[in-house]
């Protein structure tokens, strides 16, 4: 069977990926802008995320109210989000409304960042930052990144800091916008029951006149720091214990293996679940493969009563050591493959999910994968390939330990 997608690049550099899904009744479209928190300069930390908010605030064609009203007139499920290395705007609509959806999204990309809305939206972002400070997991994760990537743009929070958001000017944001939101730094993905020729014609009409900025990536791979840090916060009841260990970067078979290792270690029906959670030590203990294009980390993460920090830490380390030294069992690998098969089948029926998968593929692999291709790569994970992975990214590495909560543990750590 031929690939179900069409790849095209407009003269101005805008890359387009379209996947035909003939059995569905809807379609999703989204822009991925290759910019995020790691592309900011320190005094402007948070500009990518604040800009994402401002993109809903008006264009030369639409007042902010018209943007949201026009989305809602289509009955679109739409939103936007910012990460360390991307900003995404998407809408999921009935298939007949796809052209109108692309037109609104494309118009948003030409935002005027209205001055009169800037202060009001700054308040909204400051409220979002305040909300994040009441969530211990958010606090812990920001703290972890701050320490693990110290001295690198990946160290600052996606939302920015109160001070940087308060100090940011509209002119600074405008300069960032002009540089980063250009067609040669963007990807447009469409998935659903669509006519590709009509979609390309529509995109050319809406985006063909945009000018490239010639922006180039200034990203520098981070050096992950080893160490131990504590953020003592009396206001919380529980303690978060998190260990990061270098892992494979995003894209390719090594990343699939890292993801499988995380599942075996700390997913559902995992070693963490049976040997840590189900011993009563921690209500939540999990492992994640956290990935960027140029680096990755294995995150071992748990929450516990403050008096159980040492036990939780030791238990997570012990499970990591066992996998590192003894490898994984064939039945564990098989379970990962089986689960993945079902989840991919489930995701493959929803255009919005395919949209996000295609965006991942394009950003980290440079080309889309069919669901069958994704499955064939999962099938390549074996006991031996996991063992081989461990020699490159040993789970026995010291890594970085952070502890957040009411207890000053470990006492020999750097305190904040």
């Amino acid at each position: 069977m031929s690939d179900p997608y069409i790849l095209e690049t407009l003269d101005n550099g805008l890359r387009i990926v379209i996947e035909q899904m003939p059995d569905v009744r809807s379609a999703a479209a989204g822009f991925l802008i290759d910019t995020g928190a790691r592309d900011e300069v320190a005094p402007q930390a948070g500009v990518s995320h604040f800009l994402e908010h401002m993109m809903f605030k008006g264009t030369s064609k639409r007042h902010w109210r018209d943007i949201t009203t026009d989305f809602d007139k289509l009955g679109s499920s739409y939103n936007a989000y910012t990460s360390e290395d991307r900003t995404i705007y998407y809408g999921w609509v009935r298939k007949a409304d796809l052209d109108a959806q692309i037109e609104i999204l494309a118009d948003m990309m030409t935002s005027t960042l209205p001055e009169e809305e800037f202060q009001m939206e700054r308040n909204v972002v400051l409220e979002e930052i305040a909300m994040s400070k009441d969530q211990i997991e958010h606090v812990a994760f920001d703290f972890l990144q701050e320490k693990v990537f110290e001295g690198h743009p990946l160290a600052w929070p996606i939302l920015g800091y109160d001070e940087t958001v308060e100090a940011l000017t509209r002119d600074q944001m405008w300069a960032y916008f002009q540089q980063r939101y250009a067609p040669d730094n963007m990807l447009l993905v469409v998935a659903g029951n669509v006519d590709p020729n009509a979609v390309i014609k529509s995109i050319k009409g809406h985006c063909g006149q945009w000018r490239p900025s010639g922006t180039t990536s200034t990203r520098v791979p981070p050096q992950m720091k080893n160490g131990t840090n504590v953020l003592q916060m009396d206001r919380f009841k529980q303690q978060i214990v998190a260990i990061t260990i270098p892992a494979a970067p995003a894209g390719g078979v090594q990343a699939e293996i890292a993801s499988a290792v995380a599942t075996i270690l700390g997913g559902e029906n995992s070693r963490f679940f049976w040997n840590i959670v189900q011993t009563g030590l921690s209500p939540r203990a999990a492992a994640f493969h956290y990935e960027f294009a140029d680096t990755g980390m294995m995150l071992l993460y748990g929450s516990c009563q403050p008096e159980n920090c040492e036990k939780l830490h030791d238990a997570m380390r012990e499970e990591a050591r066992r996998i590192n030294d003894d490898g994984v069992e064939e039945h564990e690998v098989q379970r990962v493959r089986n689960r993945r098969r079902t989840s991919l089948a489930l995701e493959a029926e929803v255009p919005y999910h395919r949209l996000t998968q295609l965006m991942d593929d394009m950003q980290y692999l440079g080309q889309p994968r069919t669901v069958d291709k994704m499955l064939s790569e999962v099938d390549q994970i074996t006991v031996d390939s996991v063992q081989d992975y461990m020699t490159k990214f040993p789970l026995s590495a010291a890594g970085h330990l952070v502890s957040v909560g009411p207890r000053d543990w470990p006492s020999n750590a750097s305190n904040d």
Partner: protein
Amino acid sequence: MTDFVHDTLPCGIEYAVCPLPRRKVVCFQLRVLAGMVTEPADKLGLMNILSESIDKGTENYTGQQLADALDVIGASSGIGAGRETITFSCTVLPEHLERIVELQAELLRRPTFPENMLTVNLDLAKQELSTLEDDASGLSEKMMGPIAFGPLLGRHPLGEVATLDAITRQDLVEHWKKYFHAGNMLLSVAGDIDPQRVSDVFEKHFSEFGSPVKQGREAVPVKFTPQVLHRDKKLEQEQISICWPGVDARHEDFPAQQVMLGILSGGMSSRLFTEVREKQGLVYWVSAWQETPRGSGMIFLGASTTPERCDKTFHTLLHEVNRLADDITQEELDRTLTGILASQETRGDSTRSHSHEIASDLFFHGRPISPTEKADKFSRVTIDDIQRYLATHPRDKMCVVTLGPKALQQSTNTSHAEAQ
């Protein structure tokens, strides 16, 4: 046009199947009609413990063996205890339907509730109760539950430390024996599957599972106690929740209520998002929603904001509710209706959504309802209907909960007349 099969198996399970050709997965939901409302008053938290324990050991499997068996077929499954039901959800590739039903029957029919697993789950529940203090929105919900819904429907899933301490293995066994039988179960299935195959496999594995007589269909009454409740807590933001009675999912005014909620909080052009967030920058999060146990419905508004903006946010929320009766436009109504109908259509591409939708229909309406019939009910809602709904369901008494460093400044009685 969606064709359903809706019937009752000889064993007593009421079921509905929605065949969806060319889908690659099968999703189903089994609901046992027993939730937190069935807990003895001195054993609160029992249903959550039961849901955590029921798959941790059966006559033929240890908990881990059962989890491994589910993984062998790549099944995605979950168990959740709610107010009125405990739900068992599964997604598998169609070729594994027989095996997943066999495994679900194993845990539903032959749980052993091992003592050691119960001890762990009780300990974990107590830890969760303690860490609930770190979850501002969760705490706010816990404060609102008893005053909005009353002592039965307003229970918290985790119970209390004292009631958890009182739960024994025998309690789980007795509760399971009392409520887990085929006549007390609803089943919804969606996917590329022959309905006969569904009925055959479920009948095979659930025949003679207790009484086939239908039970558990009675509504539990709400006890609404309007009041203002504040708890001081060191937080960056104040959590604000407001609640008043609405109508239940079977009420003739339910479509009007849902459209009203859409106008208030359906999309980013809705009133709360526009007036509270976009125009005044008071919040990042603001929302309106409904919760509808059988036979009742409650409307909620929620927002979180820094303490100095708390009063203004609160009064803006009330103002937006009050002016609804005066100035809904046809354009606004049309936009909201489009949102509801389009969402129904796009969600229809998800097999899991179909399964959940049918489960909800069986629970509330006693039958699956086609998307066309649902769309027709919403399409007929007019501005007059919403105004009549607002007039006949006044917001004259409310529950108001705030959690954070600052109580509402003005003396706020539970009548919202003062905000008009």
